[in-house]
């Protein structure tokens, strides 16, 4: 059965800290891994990763995929209170569906 596991489930940091969110996956016919950010509304797309070792970057956020060890990390540097959200990762098994992890709830304190 396909599975995506995120850690930690929750995290509290202070502004300016750097955080690393983890996502491990067991997904048959794996094609890509997606990261979403969810504030008090709809999840919004952050990154899609298909190849190992190639870092995707958007401002203070970056992500990388390791297809040999079956995991991805999402890094956020110089965190701000606006980064507080639930971060979701999902594996694409080429079946039209995404398999979501439980999410990591990040809280950034001023």
């Amino acid at each position, binding site marked *: 059965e396909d599975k995506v596991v*995120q850690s930690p*489930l929750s995290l509290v940091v202070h502004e300016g800290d750097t955080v690393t969110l983890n996502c491990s996956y067991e997904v048959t016919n794996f*094609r*890509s891994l*997606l990261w*979403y950010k969810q504030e008090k*509304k*709809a*999840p*919004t*797309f952050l990154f*899609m990763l298909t190849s190992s070792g190639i870092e995707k970057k958007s401002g203070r956020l970056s992500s990388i995929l390791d297809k040999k060890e079956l995991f991805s990390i999402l890094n956020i540097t110089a965190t701000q209170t606006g980064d507080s959200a639930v971060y*979701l990762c*999902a594996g*694409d098994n*080429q*079946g*039209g*569906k*995404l398999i*979501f*992890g*439980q*999410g990591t709830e990040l809280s950034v304190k001023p």
Partner: protein
Amino acid sequence: DVKVTQSSRYLVKRTGEKVFLECVQDMDHENMFWYRQDPGLGLRLIYFSYDVKMKEKGDIPEGYSVSREKKERFSLILESASTNQTSMYLCASSPADGQGSNEQFFGPGTRLTVL
């Protein structure tokens, strides 16, 4: 911009009531999905649809049904609401598989409370 809209942001119903949650997307996407989201459990797939009049069970279909009469609209139906169906319900859509990205676009969610 892709837009996925859901009929209600908040809904309160009584046990045993029939509940309809509506979802509409404006990007001509073939695929549509219904999830429920509960603390610590992430997004769990209830039903999905790859085409009009087509539906497939997800991981937790019990107690739910769906309807897709038009490409842009996907409805989730709770035939007889129960308190354990209190949750946040998220609708999503995506292009047909094979058209590149499998990114799903989400609606704002409906927070359903069943009393």
